[in-house]
């Protein structure tokens, strides 16, 4: 099928898709007039039931915790899948290197790798500390502010990326060994499920909030399992992202070690 034919077919399909979209949107209540019962129902009950002031995180980790377990395992599987897909690549590449092809470490040593500029190195290294603190704070304050395990975990991973960006790739590798990251990711994902299963063991529904709810709504020690689950999710997301970047960086490691 030539590109022109493909484009014509797409035009027809897009017209049909647009027509269906417009028909569906005509049935929506209109932007800004959300009628549904769930929003006001949750907002009026969240402090009484969970002592958390962050309604979005309360929904994520308590009211709809079941969905969040599934999403977290998507993340887990994607990181594991990357290790599986790219590991075979590394084996093939190393074979080629031994036969003296153009991407051998010897050839890599003679490649001109531009050094990282000093301003980038200084700024990145200075920002590592504050970024890690902010990520940690976000992951542990899910019940109070617009924060939560997912955002905090990504920012924690960004702290590791900054170490790489400042040119210290080998320091990045030493600070994030794959074994430790695997354990951290497993602790995060398994911990979430363990918290839910412990509720089963106490003859309560799965993922029921059984820890003490605290007295002040929105304090760090309030809202029971929400804080604990958010912390575990933060660890898991950070480990998954650092693993993903580590997998993609291993190719450069093969070249860098020849040149540095």
């Amino acid at each position, binding site marked *: 099928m030539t590109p022109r034919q493909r484009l014509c077919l797409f035009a027809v399909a897009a017209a049909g898709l647009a027509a269906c979209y*417009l028909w569906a949107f005509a049935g929506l209540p209109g932007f800004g007039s959300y009628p549904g019962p769930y929003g006001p129902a949750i907002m009026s009950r969240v402090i009484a039931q969970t002592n958390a002031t962050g*309604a979005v995180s309360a929904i994520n980790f308590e009211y709809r915790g079941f969905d*969040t377990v599934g999403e977290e395992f*998507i993340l887990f599987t994607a990181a594991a899948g990357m290790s599986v897909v790219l590991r075979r690549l590394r084996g093939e590449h190393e074979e080629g290197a031994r036969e003296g092809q153009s991407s051998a470490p010897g050839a890599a040593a003679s490649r001109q790798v531009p050094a990282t500029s000093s301003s980038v190195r200084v700024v990145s290294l200075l920002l590592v500390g504050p970024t890690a603190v902010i990520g940690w704070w976000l992951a542990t304050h899910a019940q109070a502010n617009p924060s939560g395990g997912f955002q905090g975990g990504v920012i924690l991973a960004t702290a590791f990326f900054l170490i790489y960006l400042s040119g210290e790739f080998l320091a990045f590798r030493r600070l994030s060994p794959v074994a430790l990251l695997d354990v951290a990711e497993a602790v995060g994902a398994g911990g979430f499920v363990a918290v839910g299963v412990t509720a089963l063991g106490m003859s309560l529904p799965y993922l029921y909030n059984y820890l003490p709810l605290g007295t002040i709504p929105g304090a760090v020690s309030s809202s029971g399992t929400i804080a604990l689950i958010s912390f575990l999710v933060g660890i898991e997301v950070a480990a998954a992202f650092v693993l993903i970047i580590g997998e993609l960086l291993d190719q450069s490691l093969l070249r860098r070690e020849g040149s540095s």
Partner: protein
Amino acid sequence: MQVFPFLVVAWIVIVGLYGVITSRDLIHQIVCLIVVQSSTYVLLLGVGYVTGGVAPYLFDISPHAKAVDPVVQALALTDVVVEAAVTALLLSLAIQAHKRFGTLDPHELVELRG
């Protein structure tokens, strides 16, 4: 203003799909998939918006104040982070295709059709 955000969502979906179909580079195709997925976030938040509502955090508002819907925000929130990991997996598949076939042009990757 009643339907404008939804029109923007439809536009983003169609533009993204156009990019996927007319792309000559697997990396560009994956980025267009990211664009299509971002339209669903705008749609989710647009459905839950309440005119004159505030963010659904009860730190300083009463539980009966007019706030936007927090349920769709929770859905969009986990979606955003999970999308990045799935995109990374797709990119690793593209890297493997490049190593195996030497090209990232979808028009030339005919061997994948079995």
